[in-house]
């Protein structure tokens, strides 16, 4: 509960912050400090310090899983603020409002990681989506940004409609929005229930950009200002997965076998289309949006396997994927040319940027001794443990091998090709932060449980 209330309040604070001061560093500092407070409040929530005792009447249920995810999402956002906060200034004049909108998104994330009623799910998803529509279109003078925002908004509303229909059908069957009620006594799929399940599956697939509901993603990600693409493609996307798995485990966990194949097919299609299309991209930004689809395919393994390994793995995947992608986007933001050629010879001019970027790319490709390896390891072992979907595992690793192709193209450009000198301004603190993140990626790659164990032992032993 701490996170939901405080993030909403912080959003309001940021809005007023824009009224009282025009100093951009001041706004940024308030946002960074506020978010730090939010993280601390959420961690305290995990430890049993609840600041707000609101009777939610069973509509929200706070468990360790959701709170742990909140912590990771907020921490990733915090790193994102530090790395890319400065670049938000270049988008437009309404810096404080951008921060406010991001805080509202975080509020939505805190809701979808804790919902226990389909109404709250709907609210959470909408609270996430609407600020994002605005952020996508925040580069007002840019036609592509406007187009992306409109496309995103139309497709988003459409999928929200589908989700509402699904919720309605479930309500029709069970007479309640509460997930406990919906789960109870439904071990076989009746036609109504199946229709509701399908609609929800499609709507959620849209939100996490699973194939064949992914068509909005490349355009929206490519069109929106890069600094917000970074946020959308990482934190928001993994939040969608938390909602997805929470919803399907909560409502349809008992009849998992009946829809597992469908989920597996969506997963395989997502992996395949995402990876194959990413191969053909010429712009790194667009490649990253397809890569986000491809990575979504791996996160969908959690839905297919639906066991404890998968849930633990999803948390880990969220952290590993967000850290690496935020890092790459932060480097990309400093570039003027987003094509692969733009990266040519970066290693010579900016060895630190190139080296850290390489670690992030290796992590996304899932090479051992980076966090990304464990993310994939968990997903694969969850699916192998499940045992029914070995074909999907094989598809998964083949697609992972394809992903090496486009991730390594960036590495090749940076290290093995000579390019035109491109002016890149970087501050010392920016580089330092990149090094710290890269070190964290490697450290998590060698001791993946260290972080989680620390959190657990801090509060429960």
């Amino acid at each position, binding site marked *: 509960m701490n996170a939901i209330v405080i993030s909403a309040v912080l959003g309001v604070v940021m809005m007023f912050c824009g009224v009282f001061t025009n100093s951009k560093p001041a706004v940024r500092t308030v946002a960074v400090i506020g978010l730090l407070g939010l993280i601390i409040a959420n961690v305290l929530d995990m430890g049993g310090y609840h600041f707000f005792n609101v009777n939610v009447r069973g509509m929200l249920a706070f468990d360790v899983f959701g709170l742990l995810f909140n912590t990771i999402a907020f921490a990733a956002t915090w790193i994102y603020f530090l790395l890319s906060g400065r670049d938000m200034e270049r988008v437009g004049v309404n810096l404080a409002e951008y921060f406010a909108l991001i805080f509202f998104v975080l509020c939505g994330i805190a809701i979808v990681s804790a919902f226990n009623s389909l109404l709250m799910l709907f609210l959470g998803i909408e609270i996430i989506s609407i600020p994002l529509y605005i952020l996508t279109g925040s580069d007002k003078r840019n036609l592509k940004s406007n187009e992306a925002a409109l496309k995103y908004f139309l497709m988003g509303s459409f999928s929200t409609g589908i989700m509402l229909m699904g919720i309605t059908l479930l309500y029709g069957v069970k007479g309640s929005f509460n997930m406990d009620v919906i789960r109870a006594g439904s071990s076989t799929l009746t036609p109504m229930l199946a229709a509701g399940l399908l609609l929800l599956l499609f709507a959620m697939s849209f939100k996490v950009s699973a194939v064949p509901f992914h068509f909005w993603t490349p355009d929206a990600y490519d069109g929106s200002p890069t600094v917000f693409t970074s946020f959308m493609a990482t934190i928001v996307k993994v939040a969608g997965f938390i909602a997805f798995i929470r919803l399907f485990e909560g409502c349809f966990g008992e009849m998992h076998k009946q829809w597992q194949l469908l989920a597996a097919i969506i997963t395989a299609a997502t992996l395949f289309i995402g990876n194959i299309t990413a191969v053909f991209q010429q712009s790194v930004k667009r490649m990253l949006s397809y890569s986000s689809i491809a990575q979504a395919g791996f996160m969908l393994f959690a839905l297919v396997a639906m066991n404890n390994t998968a849930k633990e793995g999803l948390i880990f995947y969220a952290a590993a994927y967000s850290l690496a992608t935020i890092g790459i986007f932060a480097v990309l933001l400093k570039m003027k040319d987003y094509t692969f050629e733009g990266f040519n010879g970066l290693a010579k001019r900016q060895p630190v940027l190139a080296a850290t970027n390489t670690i992030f790319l290796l992590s996304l490709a899932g*090479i051992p001794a980076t966090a990304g390896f464990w993310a994939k*390891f968990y997903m*694969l072992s969850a699916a192998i443990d499940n045992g029914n979907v070995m074909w999907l595992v094989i598809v998964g*690793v083949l697609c992972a091998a394809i992903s*090496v192709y486009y991730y390594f193209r960036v590495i090749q450009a940076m*290290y*093995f090709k000579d390019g035109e000198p491109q002016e890149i301004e970087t501050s010392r603190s920016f580089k330092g932060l990149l090094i710290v993140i890269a070190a964290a990626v490697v450290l998590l790659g060698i001791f993946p*449980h260290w972080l989680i164990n620390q959190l657990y032992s801090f509060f429960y032993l």
Partner: protein
Amino acid sequence: MIPVLLIVIPLVSGLLAFLIKQEKSVKVWSLVTSLITMVVAILGIAVLHKPEYLQTNVAWLPNLNSNFSLTMDGMSKLLCLLTGIAYPGIFIATWNSTYKNPHQFYALMLLMQTGLLGVFVASDALLFYFFWELALIPAYFLCSIWGGERRVAVTFKFFIYTFVGSLLMLIGIIWVYLHTPDHSFAMTSFYKVNLPGNTQGWLFWLFFLAFAIKIPLWPFHTWQPDTYEQSPTAVTMVLSGIMVKMGVFGVLRWLAPVLPVGLWGYGDPAATMCVIGMIYASFVAMQQDDLKRLVAYSSIAHMGLMGLAIFVTSSIGIQGVMIQMFNHGINIIGMWIVVELIERQFGTRKMSELGGLAQKAPGLAIMLVVVALANVALPLTNAFIGEFMMFNGVFSSKASNYHYIFMVVGGISIILSAIYTLNMIQKVFYGNTSSLTANARDIRVNEKFVLAVLLIGIVIMGVYPKPMIEATKHAVDAIYSKMFIKLP
């Protein structure tokens, strides 16, 4: 203690080498640290052979039941020794080569050594996988930055090939792990797994692919000649001398004892691949004009024989493989050194442009002839004993119905290897001198030194192989007994 040192010394020295910007000092630094590694390896083999010195077990991932556990048995010892000796040898032999950004080159070389040694001493499946991949990353950068003209594309192919193989192996590892009695990645637990026959069958292929790509066996060998040709020679030496042994080693340690039924069931198709590869590679080698490609294809043929001896299972054959892994490593590094010397002096590797070197550079000629004869397994050279044991194993095998055919076809490839090797000697060293070789000079002292050490080693091991046979005896028995216990 010893295995930890073997990993830590190259790791730390490799990381530190990134900071040494001066070419001379980084060369000295890498040579000295690799010599220390060698001394530690020899210490572990010859002096401190109590088990407590050769084992380490530290908790690493308690949640997954995976430990940082390292063990050196007979097979690991031989390969650690090979790696330990090869590295200083390579550094000395390529002392006169210059690289741009030398500190990065030597740092990556040392990091690769970390991965290689880690593979050979890891006794935990997950740790093994870690090192297996970690050896690949430095190799990727080494070949892509310092290689020849087509380096980027060629190395990329190499990387993707091996990466696909490793990921398939990862599936296999996870599967076996989930079926171990105590849910553990430890080697001992892996050896206790008893899976049904058909499961072992498809798991066999997952592991097999990873190792077959690395070895490389036909038809997964296509990355190898290009990569060997395009890489800087020092890296080629490591790749062909040590890294491909990872594949053979993997089969012996992680495939044969874990999935014996799968290996018995699919040994024949796998052995057929090996045999086809031997003949095919020998014929291709005969057509080559480029020295590097010739050696590369001859290496495919020799590695194919090792694969054959494993998949047509027999105790003596497996022992032959272990010994041959070491000897092939020594011999092929010797070959590369000679090739490198020729290329550096004349700027070409084409046999058609060389000739008559024997008069101009007798030292070089003697060295090459001995190394080349060892490569074709002439008696009294080190490779003879290994190949003899392997053929003996294939001949006496009871596991395969076709072992006579394999034996005959394999024998033909040995004859072919004599043909192309002698042909190479003739073309390069005899005949008339060309315009390039008219002013050839003999080799330098450091090169002479390394080659002389190699030659002495080749002859000693050829005449008196008993220590190696004894060192591997126990490891062979351990593996072979595992393969029989689990027969249904």
